[in-house]
């Protein structure tokens, strides 16, 4: 089992996202995360999928997704040529005596405090997955009340694989 990050460029048609996620579920592929949003050109949507499986499965994922009529492009975002970012919102219990140490930890990871209540904080943190995992590990001594992670969005570095949308 290994993980691959795929970047997709798809037509922004009704049902496209459900066609893609449906393909994963009916063929029994594992999806770790999926993020989607329109591109600068509203006709298209960019999707980042993190999938796991053996080499045969990962190869099939690329081929089967590529077959979907709405999919314009799919390629792997190789870690060495790409940047990945994920956003996480963490609501952690913070009584008065815990607050300072949580703030200090958040600060080291460049997290932002976006909500403060008498007994909790919400921290926003952005980074690659390992950074977020490391941050959450440090919070283990505290009580995480709620956690929302977006899954990663990614782009390849440079202009080599950019697809121009002007046709």
């Amino acid at each position: 089992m290994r993980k691959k990050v795929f970047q997709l460029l798809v037509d922004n048609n009704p049902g496209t996202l459900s066609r893609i996620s449906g393909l994963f579920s009916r063929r029994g592929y594992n999806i770790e995360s999926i993020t989607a949003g329109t591109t600068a050109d509203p006709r298209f949507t960019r999707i980042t999928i993190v999938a796991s499986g053996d080499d045969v499965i990962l190869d099939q994922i690329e081929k089967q997704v590529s077959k979907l009529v709405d999919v314009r492009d799919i390629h792997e975002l190789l870690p060495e040529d790409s940047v990945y970012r994920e956003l996480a919102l963490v609501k952690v219990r913070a009584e008065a005596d815990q607050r300072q140490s949580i703030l200090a930890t958040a600060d080291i990871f460049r997290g932002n405090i976006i909500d403060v209540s008498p007994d909790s904080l919400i921290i926003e943190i952005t980074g690659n997955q390992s950074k977020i995992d490391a941050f959450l590990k440090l919070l283990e001594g505290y009580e995480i009340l709620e956690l929302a992670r977006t899954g990663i969005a990614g782009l390849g570095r440079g202009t080599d694989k950019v697809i121009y949308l002007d046709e």
Partner: protein
Amino acid sequence: MIGAEAIVKCLEKEKTDVIFGYSGVAIDPFWNKMLASDIKRVLIRTEQNAAHCASGYARISGKVGVCAVTSGPGATNLITGIATAYADSIPLVAITGQVNSDMIGSDVFQEADITGAVESFVKYSYLVRDVNDIPRIFKEAFFIASTGRKGPVLIDIPYDIQLSELTTKFNYPESISMRTYKPTVNGNMAQIKKVIKEVEKAKRPIICAGGGVHLSGAVEELRKFAELNDVPVVSTMMGIGVMPTDHPLYFGMVGNNGQAYANRAMNESDLLLMVGARVADRAVNRPDLITENKVMVHIDVDPAEIGKNVGPTIPLVGDIKHIFHDFLEMDDHADNHREWVKLLEKYKKENTSQKIESKDGYLDPKDFICKLSECMKDDAIYVADVGQNQMWSCECSKVRDGRFLTSGGMGTMGYSIPAAMGAKIAAPNKQVVAVIGDGAFQMSMMELATMRQYGIPVKIVVMKNGYLGMVREHQHFAYNDNYSMVELSGDPDLSLIASAYGMEYMKVDGNSDVVKDIKKFLKDDKSSLMEVVVDPMALTK
């Protein structure tokens, strides 16, 4: 022009000549506008069969089959037919009526989310939101259905859209280019050269032909290539008929239910050209065997099929007709594999299939099918249903210049009668024979009325054994004859069924002069029904 007229116009532009379907309020605007069209309409008796009819029609005509039904239950009834076509890559355009646009999602009467429901069985689907999109959507739908790996496309059209006026002039696109859908047609030249080199080098080459060869219309090219290079051919179930059964280079059907000598030929080859076949479990239950000690070339129009079930040595993506055309152009010297062919001939002789005894008044089904196909016209269309009759048909029917149709991928019982009707409409001058068991017959016998209504003469052979035979056979081996849910003791009197639908009827059993009866059965071009009494305990192996 309203939406419904635009749909009719689109179908005329696509040169559709027949639509199979069923009525209902949500599709009525369309049927109403069809009154003014020359396109033939066939009102089937249950929606599933509209898709099967269209499938039989598509497979014989080489065109896209079209069916149209109403919303809700009409649409959901169609799903099995669509899934059957999808599994065998048959090009269909299915049109469904839908409730009014502003009611979608509110669970009103006869509303079903059909685009959602068929998602895993279609190449693509559309829900029409704007009446002006109809020409573009139909052009795309026919294009998608009939190119690349063929398959069904569904268009769901709300009632109000069918009735609303187009605000732009109806303009059917002449050509089409889709940003995201560009199937590969031509094979990669470097790969093609590699394959030709391997064929030259090989001592024991073999071609395994699948249904893709028929779908691509490459039968002639493949035969020519095999003959020129002296390469033996085996087929999958969907590939039956690529070579005439009696062709000296043809060595039967592979797979669990195929001939042992065909499997042996494939396993012992040193070069295997897998052409337009999925390498699915029933055809190849040990994929490792067909890659062991050999070069395996996988030729398919669908890149996702290559490497899905078996990892080939040389993958070759493209349309089979084009690829074999290139093979023939590049390869001008005839090879000789006489020794290999002789060996396969020996295997074939050694491995004569076991006869089923005609005892207690029962007829040997294998012998019957052999005789039936021998009495049929050379270019006849043989439609096998699903079950034991299908296995006997695959093994014993002889294809000459005709075709052999069956539901291979999905194994949908009741496919043969509607598919035979579609085939007959596509080729009215050809003899069409459906061979079906008494179980599946009762799933599709309502279509005898359709045959009568439209004068679609199909010969129907019902192999009657009072059991769901294939599953009974499975329970015989897997559950020590503890039979559950396989006995059909309520079977109707088929002579009365035939007479109820105004069809000629005859019955053959172990005491009949079978050839004489078959000849009588096939003598004219009228619908008739033949009941064949088969031993309930007969096996396929």
